[in-house]
């Protein structure tokens, strides 16, 4: 995996998979051109998958499988409680696992639920994808 540039949260995955997230597509293109990697927390994949219809699930599946610009990062047992507590703060729209990964990797979080993300992260590490 090349350098992780940012983390996508559940809201960004849902926007992408429901064709309302052109900003996500643009962001992926930027990272791909710069040679970096986008980290997608496994717990966010689960949450997004559960909320999508078959077509959306297909887009999500191809996103996390068909390009190595995107890397699904695991939630380890030791982090499960921390992720759960962070989810209480930022809601399922963001996902606590996304918060943990952004902090751990010291990268920014790309989200379509910025107000929620800012409950747990400094505004300077939150990329609001709704502002394009």
């Amino acid at each position, binding site marked *: 995996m090349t350098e992780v540039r*940012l983390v996508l949260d559940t809201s960004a995955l849902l926007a992408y998979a429901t064709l309302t997230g052109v*900003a996500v*597509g*643009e962001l992926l293109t*930027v990272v791909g051109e710069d040679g970096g990697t986008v980290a997608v927390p496994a717990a966010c994949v689960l949450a997004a998958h559960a909320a999508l219809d078959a077509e959306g699930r297909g887009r999500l599946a191809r996103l996390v499988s068909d390009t*190595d*610009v995107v890397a699904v990062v695991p939630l380890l047992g030791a982090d499960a409680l921390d992720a759960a507590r962070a989810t209480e703060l930022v809601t399922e729209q963001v996902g606590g696992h996304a918060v943990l990964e952004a902090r751990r990797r010291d990268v920014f979080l790309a989200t379509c639920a910025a107000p929620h993300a800012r409950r747990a992260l400094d505004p300077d590490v939150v*990329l609001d994808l709704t502002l394009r």
Partner: protein
Amino acid sequence: MTRRFSISLPDDVAAELDAVDNASAFIAEAIRERRRRESVRQVVADAGYEITEDGVSRMRDAVRRLEARRR
């Protein structure tokens, strides 16, 4: 496994290879990078998005601004 190629390059590109120790590795890396770039564009296009260069440029600016604030 490797295969040997005989290729022709324009002078400006060939000049880049003159400056590296391992031209094969340099070319292999360049091809892998191009494959990465094309793969993500293809995935996004197949999903149904039309990504414009203007949109990519604006997003790159937004990313740069955010990264600059964090330094």
